[in-house]
C-alpha cells in the first residue's frame, strides 16, 4: 500500500499494461480472420452477416466482439451519401430564372446554391487568370461570343512575365529589403526560364482567389467567436477536427457538391485554410491587453470602432501570421486539389509522378516550393513590418515604389513589343516562355535516377527488403494482432491515468467511433505506419535538435532549415523518396520521417531554448557538467514543450501516411483515394477523414493534457 501511495502512476501504468497484454494473449486470432476480411467491405460474400439501420444495409463479418467490434456505424457513410444526394437533387425544388434559356426552371435549392457559388468562383479565377495570362472569357461574361468575334481587340492580353517579375521584386524590396527582392527576382526568372510560367500563373490565380476569401471568412468567424462564447464553443470541435483531418478527405464530399475543376479546388482550399485563420484571429484578439481595450472604450469608441480601430490593429501581427498560414495551406492544397482537376503546377506534378517522370516532377515541385518560400517570406515580412507614416515626405519618397512599378510596366510593355519583332515567326520570349520551350533538366534528373538505381540497386534492395520483412511486417502484424477490447482498454486507461475521467471519456469516444466504423483494421495499419514514422522522427529530431541547440549559429541554421522545409507542400516530399526507393512502403515511411522530423527538431530546439538562463547559471555554479545539466535540468524542464513537438509530429506523420496512399499503401488513405474515384464516395471519404482526424485527436488530447499537468507541476505554466 505504501508503494502504491509513493508511485501511484507507475502502478496504474503497470496494471494497464498487464491487463492489455493479458487480453492480447487471452483472445486468440479467429481462425477465419484475414486482414481483408476484417473490413465490412461493401462487397457481397455469403459469409457476411447483415443489419439494416436508417435504410442502409451493412454487411460485415461477425467476429467475436472482443476481437473486432461489429461496424455499428457502417450505415453512416451510406447515410451521409444519401443525404448529400437528397439535398442536391430533391430537397426544396424552387423556380429559378435561367439566363441561357430565358425562362424559369425548377431546381433543388442546394443544387442552385452550389451552382451559383461554382459560377462566381469560376468567374473570379478566370478574371485573375486572364489578367496574368490573357484570354477572353471575362469579357465574354459581360458581352457575348459574337461581340468578341467582331471586336478581337477586346481580348485581354496577358501580363508579360517581366512586369510580374518586376512587380514581385519591388514589392519584396518594400516589405523586406534587398535580400528578399533578389530572391524574388531569381524565383521569377527560374519560373520563366524553365517554362513554368503558365502553370505557375494558373496556380497563383486560384490561390489569389482562395487566400483572400479564406482571410475574409476566417477573420469574420474569428471575430464572431471572440465576441460570442456560444459561437466559439460551436466552432471549437469543428476547428479541432479540421486541423487534424487529412486534406484528401475533404476533396470527396466537396467533389460531390461542387463537381471538379478549379472552382471546386478553391472551395476545398478555403475549407482547409479558414480554420488556422480563425484560430490565429482568436489568439490575436485574446492577446490584446485589457488596458488597451479600456483605453479604447474610455475614448468613446463604439463596438465597431473598438474592433476596427483598436482590437484588429493591436492584433495585427497574429492576424498577418494567419494570412501567412492561409497562403501556406493554399500552396499545400495546390497539389492535392489537382486530384479534382485544378490546373497549374500541382496538376503537372501529379501527371509527372503518375508517369514516374521524376525529372519533370522535380522541376514542378521545385517551382511550387520556391513560390511557397517566396510568399511565406513576403507574408512574414508584411506581418513584421511597422506601418509607414508619410509625414514630411516628398511626393517621390511617398510614392517611389508605385512609380518604379509604373516604370517597370512601361519598360515591360516596350520589351514585349520589341519582342514581337525580335522573335518574329516564333514565340515572344519577352512576353511569355511557353511550357515546352523553356529550359529543362528533366532528362538530367531522370538519368540521375537511373544511375542511382544502377549503382545502388543491390544496397537499396537489401535495405528495403530488410526494413519490410524484419521491421515493418512484424510491426504491422503486432498492431493487427491487438484485439479491439485490449486496444480500447489501453486507450481509455491511458486517458484516465493522464487526464482523469473526462479525458478517458473523450479519447474513449474517439476510439470507439473508429472501432465501430467499418475500417478498424485499416486504422490500425495507419496507426502502425504513423507510429514507425513518429518514433524515427522523434529520435532524429531530438538528437539533431539537442546537438544544434548547443551553439547559437547551428540553432539559427537549423531553425532556418526547418522553416524552409515546412513551406514545401507535403506532396513534394514524395519525389526524392520515389527516386531512391521506388514504389514501396519504405518510400512512404521515409517521406513520413523526413516530413515529421521538422516539428520534432524545431520543438526540441525551442524547448531547450525556453529553459531560463538563470537555471543554467545556477547549474554551472553548482558545478555540474554540460551533460549533467542537459540530462538533469534542461530536458526535464523542456520536456513539456518537446511533447508538443511530438504532438505535431504525430499530425504531420498521419498527413504524410495518408498522402502516401498515392504510392500504394493499404491504410485509410488508400480508401480515401478510392473514394475519390467512386461515384458514391462522398460519405465514405468524409467518415474516413474523420477516422484519421480522431486518431490524431486521441494523441492530441493525451499529450496536451499531460503537458498542461506537467507544466503546472514544474511551475512553468
Amino acid at each position: 500500500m505504501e508503494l502504491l501511495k509513493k508511485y501511484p502512476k507507475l502502478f496504474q501504468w503497470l496494471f494497464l499494461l498487464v491487463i492489455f497484454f493479458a487480453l492480447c494473449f487471452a483472445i486468440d486470432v479467429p481462425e477465419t480472420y484475414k486482414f481483408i476480411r476484417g473490413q465490412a467491405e461493401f462487397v457481397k460474400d455469403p459469409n457476411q452477416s447483415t443489419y439494416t439501420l436508417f435504410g442502409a444495409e451493412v454487411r460485415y463479418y461477425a467476429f467475436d466482439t472482443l476481437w473486432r467490434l461489429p461496424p455499428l456505424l457502417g450505415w453512416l457513410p451510406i447515410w451521409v451519401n444519401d443525404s448529400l444526394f437528397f439535398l442536391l437533387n430533391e430537397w426544396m425544388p424552387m423556380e429559378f430564372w435561367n439566363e441561357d434559356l430565358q425562362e424559369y426552371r425548377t431546381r433543388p435549392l442546394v443544387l442552385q446554391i452550389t451552382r451559383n457559388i461554382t459560377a462566381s468562383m469560376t468567374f473570379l479565377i478566370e478574371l485573375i487568370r486572364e489578367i496574368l495570362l490573357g484570354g477572353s472569357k471575362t469579357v465574354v461574361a459581360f458581352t457575348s461570343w459574337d461581340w468578341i468575334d467582331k471586336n478581337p481587340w477586346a481580348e485581354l492580353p496577358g501580363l508579360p512575365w517581366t512586369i510580374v517579375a518586376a512587380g514581385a521584386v519591388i514589392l519584396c524590396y518594400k516589405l523586406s529589403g534587398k535580400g528578399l527582392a533578389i530572391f524574388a527576382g531569381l524565383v521569377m526568372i527560374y519560373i520563366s526560364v524553365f517554362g513554368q510560367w503558365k502553370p505557375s500563373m494558373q496556380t497563383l490565380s486560384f490561390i489569389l482567389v482562395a487566400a483572400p476569401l479564406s482571410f475574409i471568412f476566417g477573420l469574420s468567424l474569428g471575430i464572431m467567436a471572440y465576441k460570442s462564447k456560444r459561437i466559439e464553443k460551436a466552432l471549437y470541435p469543428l476547428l479541432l477536427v479540421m486541423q487534424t483531418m487529412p486534406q484528401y478527405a475533404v476533396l470527396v464530399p466537396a467533389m460531390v457538391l461542387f463537381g471538379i475543376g478549379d472552382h471546386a479546388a478553391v472551395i476545398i482550399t478555403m475549407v482547409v485554410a479558414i480554420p488556422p485563420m480563425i484560430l490565429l484571429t482568436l489568439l490575436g484578439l485574446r492577446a490584446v491587453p485589457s488596458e488597451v481595450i479600456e483605453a479604447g472604450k474610455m475614448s468613446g469608441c463604439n463596438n465597431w470602432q473598438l474592433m476596427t480601430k483598436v482590437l484588429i490593429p493591436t492584433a495585427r501581427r497574429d492576424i498577418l501570421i494567419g494570412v501567412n498560414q492561409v497562403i501556406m495551406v493554399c500552396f499545400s492544397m495546390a497539389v492535392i486539389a489537382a486530384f479534382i482537376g485544378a490546373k497549374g503546377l500541382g496538376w503537372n506534378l501529379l501527371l509527372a509522378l503518375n508517369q514516374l517522370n521524376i525529372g519533370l516532377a522535380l522541376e514542378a515541385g521545385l517551382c511550387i516550393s520556391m513560390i511557397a518560400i517566396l510568399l511565406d517570406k513576403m507574408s512574414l515580412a508584411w506581418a513584421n513590418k511597422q506601418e509607414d507614416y508619410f509625414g514630411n515626405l516628398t511626393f517621390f519618397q511617398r510614392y517611389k515604389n508605385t512609380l518604379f512599378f509604373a516604370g517597370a510596366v512601361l519598360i515591360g510593355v516596350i520589351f514585349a513589343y520589341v519582342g514581337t519583332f525580335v522573335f518574329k515567326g516564333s514565340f515572344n520570349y519577352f512576353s511569355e516562355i511557353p511550357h515546352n520551350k523553356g529550359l529543362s533538366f528533366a532528362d538530367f534528373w531522370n538519368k540521375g535516377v537511373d544511375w542511382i538505381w544502377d549503382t545502388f540497386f543491390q544496397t537499396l534492395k537489401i535495405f528495403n527488403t530488410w526494413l519490410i520483412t524484419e521491421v515493418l511486417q512484424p510491426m504491422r502484424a503486432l498492431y493487427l494482432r491487438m484485439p479491439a477490447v485490449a486496444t480500447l482498454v489501453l486507450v481509455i486507461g491511458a486517458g484516465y491515468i493522464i487526464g482523469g475521467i473526462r479525458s478517458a471519456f473523450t479519447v474513449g469516444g474517439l476510439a470507439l467511433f473508429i472501432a465501430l466504423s467499418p475500417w478498424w483494421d485499416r486504422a490500425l495499419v495507419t496507426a502502425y505506419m504513423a507510429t514507425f514514422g513518429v518514433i524515427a522522427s522523434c529520435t532524429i529530431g531530438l538528437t539533431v535538435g539537442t546537438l544544434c541547440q548547443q551553439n547559437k549559429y547551428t540553432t539559427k541554421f537549423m531553425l532556418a532549415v526547418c522553416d524552409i522545409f515546412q513551406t514545401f507542400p507535403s506532396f513534394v516530399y514524395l519525389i526524392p523518396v520515389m527516386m531512391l526507393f521506388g514504389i514501396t512502403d519504405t518510400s512512404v515511411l521515409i517521406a513520413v520521417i523526413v516530413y515529421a522530423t521538422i516539428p520534432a527538431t524545431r520543438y526540441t530546439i525551442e524547448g531547450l531554448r525556453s529553459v531560463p538562463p538563470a537555471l543554467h547559471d545556477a547549474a554551472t555554479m553548482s558545478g555540474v557538467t554540460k551533460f549533467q545539466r542537459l540530462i538533469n535540468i534542461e530536458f526535464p524542464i523542456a520536456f513539456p514543450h518537446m511533447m508538443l513537438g511530438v504532438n505535431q509530429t504525430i499530425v504531420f506523420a498521419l498527413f504524410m501516411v495518408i498522402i502516401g496512399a498515392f504510392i500504394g499503401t493499404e491504410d485509410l488513405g488508400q480508401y480515401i483515394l478510392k473514394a475519390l474515384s467512386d461515384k458514391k464516395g462522398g460519405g465514405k471519404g468524409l467518415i474516413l477523414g474523420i477516422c484519421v482526424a480522431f486518431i490524431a485527436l486521441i494523441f492530441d488530447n493525451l499529450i496536451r493534457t499531460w503537458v498542461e499537468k506537467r507544466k503546472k507541476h514544474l511551475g512553468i505554466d
Partner: protein
Amino acid sequence: MLQDRYLKKLKELPEPVRQFGGLVTITVIIILSFAILNIFWGGGDELVRKMKLEEERIAQEKKLSKLISSLPSGILVTFEGTDDHRLSEEQYEAVCNATKIVSQRSVMGANLTNFKAKHIYTINGNDIKETFVKWDKEKNKCFAGFVLTGSNVGVNETITVSGEALSFFNTGIDTRVYFIRNF
C-alpha cells in the same frame, strides 16, 4: 444509512488508492460491455463454420476447374464410336460433379421423346424452372434433368425429365450437359 457509510469510507480512502480503484472499475466496465455486446453481435463460431464450408467449396471448385482445364475443349463423351474425346471413369465422375449447367440443346433433345414435356416447354415460352446434375454412386453414372412448370390447357402442371448424361460440352471455362438419354 449503510450506503452513506460506505460512500464516506470510500471518500476517506487516499487519492492514489481511489485513482487505482477508478482504473480497475473502468477496465472492468469496458471488458463487461464487450462481453455483453458479444451476446448480441458476436457470431464467432457460426462464422468459423460458415467460412470453413465456404473454403472447402472453393477448394473443391478449384480442383475441378483444374481438371476441366486439362480436358480438351469441345464435346466430351462417355461412350465409344465418335471422334470426340472419351472420358475415363474418373474424369466422368469429376466432370459430372463439376457440371452445373444443363444446356438448352440437351433439354430440347430430351423433350423429343417426351411429348408432354415438349408441350409445356413450348407453350410456356421455353421456361425451365430448375435443372440438376447428380452423380449416382450406386449406378456409377451421371444423371441430369430439368423441371418444367406451367399451364397446360388451363391446368398448372409440373413435370420432371431426367436421364443419364451421356455427353458434356467443355467451353474451357465450364462444362455443360450436352446430351441426356431419357429413353
